[in-house]
């Protein structure tokens, strides 16, 4: 079969089993778009801005486990995609980005729409390639998918100069079944001796804590993690990226940890004597003050990326390997071990945890006459029976979503954890809805974040992706305002917008349904109504309490036991204080 470069590229995607390509055409990818025009196997989703394409592809990958694919043109097409590529990179999301480049002979001449895409993206991709010969195109694409999806996953960019896709140059096509790269051999199984040491340490623990992250989700290890945790009877906490890795409604789950984690999770980490970290990377939002992080604990760390181990926190038993096989081996060893966890120690540990749980750190004012954002998330959880895919933007609403929507399954909670990219939520919801057309998909957002990629409402109409936008509208960049309240004596410098669009009309202008909700008693019905409209995108604009803050909070630079708790009427903290 003789094909042109453009045709080869599209055929590669087809052979790779790619369902959707999220993209935007332009001069240097026109040959590729012409090849797309002549086929139906790979569906192209035309976004309204390249950032949207990357977030949609990224969320598609997060929800399905399959790599997301993006196609953008050279110059501004590529630079617009950078935010989304960096977002995927920080959260280790498998993604392949194909960017057009000016023709090889003019590279370096400051040609129209030329940028050094390989150079610009280098620090925020797992790897990138510049294709210099059409004969290497198919192999390069194969390598890109291979690198993106193996080891610690990540985005891989392939920069394709226009002459490479020339329709007049045809060559024999064959998609390689396998590629091997002498310089890239990700580790799979963990070191047996280390695993044995880890199990011994775990079984002898008096105050154990399991701390799991996004690696469990990416590594499809939620079942193993759940089995191990239940077998041991130990408490477990998840990072923001790890939510859904262990069922949130289970009694052994103590909530999320870190800056806005629960009192019981953070106190548990602080007092623990053995910590099992699974696919988590000791991010600063998780650890707080490093010098006082888990002062009494010996730490076991399982991670596929050796560079994650002892990067910020020195660990006692490092295990480099994929979390799934490592956990499987641990389960077998625990089953066979004569040592059993000490019942007495575990009982008093759980009693201590219960005393922290009794603080009821997520309680808020339920009598309020103004809509509380937490209430909206709780109602969303109930209306969707906890089964929705929830995407979010970045800020207070993201934390409320993480705290109050109890994720029992992996891949349901889709947010930009590492980079913290505002504008992620809406295009992400579209990507998820395309992958799971029958599922409920909600985008929890705020009036500031949603405006960063609002243009994707148009994409949502074109491809009929009826997502539900839950806008927690407090007329502030809530998280910025919160920090200014705590650390800048309430000098709210530019954390509010004097002009905010009428979101109901805006939604209608884009061809969707808009609903404004101003009273707490209307919240539940509005959500129900929205989810009953199966074939419509609904923009729910909840006018929420402007003054609400996210609690608990570990302020930057403070330790886990140094938490700011809510002082709300009737809560245990208030009772304690009064």
């Amino acid at each position, binding site marked *: 079969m003789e094909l042109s470069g453009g045709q080869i590229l599209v055929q590669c995607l087809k052979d790779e089993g790619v369902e959707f390509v999220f993209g935007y055409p332009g001069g240097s990818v026109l040959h590729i778009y012409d090849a797309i025009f002549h086929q139906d196997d790979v569906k192209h989703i035309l976004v309204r801005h390249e950032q949207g394409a990357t977030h949609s592809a990224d969320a598609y990958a997060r929800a399905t486990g399959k790599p997301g694919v993006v196609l953008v043109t050279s110059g501004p097409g590529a630079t617009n995609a950078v935010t989304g590529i960096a977002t995927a990179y920080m959260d280790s999301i498998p993604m392949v980005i194909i960017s057009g480049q000016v023709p090889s002979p003019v590279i370096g001449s400051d040609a129209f729409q030329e940028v050094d895409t*390989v150079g610009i993206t280098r620090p925020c991709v797992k790897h990138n390639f510049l294709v210099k010969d059409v004969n290497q195109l198919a192999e390069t694409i194969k390598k890109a998918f291979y690198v993106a999806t193996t080891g610690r996953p990540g985005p891989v960019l392939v920069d394709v100069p226009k002459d490479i896709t020339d329709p007049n140059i045809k060559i024999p096509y064959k998609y390689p079944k396998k590629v091997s790269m002498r*310089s890239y051999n990700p580790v799979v199984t963990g070191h047996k001796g280390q695993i044995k040491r880890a199990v011994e340490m775990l079984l002898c623990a008096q105050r154990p804590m399991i701390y799991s992250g996004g690696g469990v989700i990416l590594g499809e290890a939620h079942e193993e993690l759940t089995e191990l945790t239940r077998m041991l009877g130990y408490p477990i906490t998840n990072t923001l990226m790890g939510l859904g890795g262990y069922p949130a409604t289970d009694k052994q789950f103590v909530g999320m940890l870190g800056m806005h984690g629960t009192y019981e999770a953070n106190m548990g980490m602080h007092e623990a004597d053995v910590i099992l970290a699974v696919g988590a990377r000791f991010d600063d939002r998780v650890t707080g003050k490093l010098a006082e992080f888990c002062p009494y604990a010996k730490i076991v760390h399982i991670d596929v990326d*050796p560079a994650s181990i002892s990067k910020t926190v020195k660990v006692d038993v490092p295990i480099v390997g994929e979390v799934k096989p490592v956990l499987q081996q641990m389960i077998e060893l625990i089953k066979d071990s004569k040592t059993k966890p000490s019942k007495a120690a575990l009982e008093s540990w759980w009693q201590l945890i219960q005393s922290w749980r009794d603080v009821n750190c997520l309680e808020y004012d339920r009598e309020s006459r103004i809509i509380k954002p937490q209430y909206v998330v709780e109602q969303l959880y109930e209306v969707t029976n906890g089964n929705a895919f929830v995407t979010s933007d970045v800020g207070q609403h993201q934390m409320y979503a993480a705290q109050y929507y109890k994720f029992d399954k992996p891949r349901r909670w889709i947010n930009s954890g590492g980079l913290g990219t505002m504008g992620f939520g809406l295009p992400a919801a579209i990507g998820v809805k395309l992958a799971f057309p029958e599922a409920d998909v909600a985008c929890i957002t705020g009036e500031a974040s949603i405006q960063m990629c609002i243009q994707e409402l148009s994409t949502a109409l074109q491809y009929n992706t009826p997502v539900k936008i839950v806008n927690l509208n407090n007329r502030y960049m809530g998280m910025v305002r919160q920090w200014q309240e705590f650390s800048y004596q309430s000098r709210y410098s530019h954390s509010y917008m004097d002009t905010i669009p009428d979101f109901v009309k805006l939604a209608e202008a884009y061809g969707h349904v808009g609903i404004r909700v101003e009273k707490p008693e209307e919240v539940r019905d509005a959500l129900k109504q929205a989810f009953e409209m199966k074939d419509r995108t609904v923009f729910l604009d909840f006018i929420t309490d402007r003054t609400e803050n996210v609690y608990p909070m570990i302020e930057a630079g403070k330790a886990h036991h140094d938490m700011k708790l809510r002082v709300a009427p009737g809560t245990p903290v208030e009772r304690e204080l009064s």
Partner: protein
Amino acid sequence: MRHIISILIENESGALSRVAGLFSARGYNIESLTVAPTEDPSLSRMTLVTSGSDEIIEQITKQLNKLIDVVKLIDLAESAHIERELMLVKIKTTHETREEVKRMVDIFRGKIIDVTPNSYVVEMTGQSNKLDAFIHGFEEGSIIEVARSGPTGISRGEKGLHL
């Protein structure tokens, strides 16, 4: 502590900037860097001199290993090794100083490889501190220019850094 990291890396465009970019992005120290193809033209060997605490060096080697183009690396400072640097120095000479300069070059076992009535070009190899000592042996103003390769190194014994 000073470390000499030897890296086998794919001889591809952009490979060097991946290494250099890693150091600047993560704020690691880079004292010198030399690179040239090996006997296998598809591979380059890079020698990188850096310094930092054990934790930092551990992170540097892990992050370097994580680069897809890096095939293998070793930290030469961990075992017995030899390191050499090449220096070319252009030295101002007068009728009176020419003999003295030549003696200096002999003492340091260098070679004079270019001669004009008013200058010598000296070629010298050795450990970096030997080259430093040679330069410091001259009065200020007598050296016209210095071109140094930066150190490169190899481990002692039959074991080596290869595929």
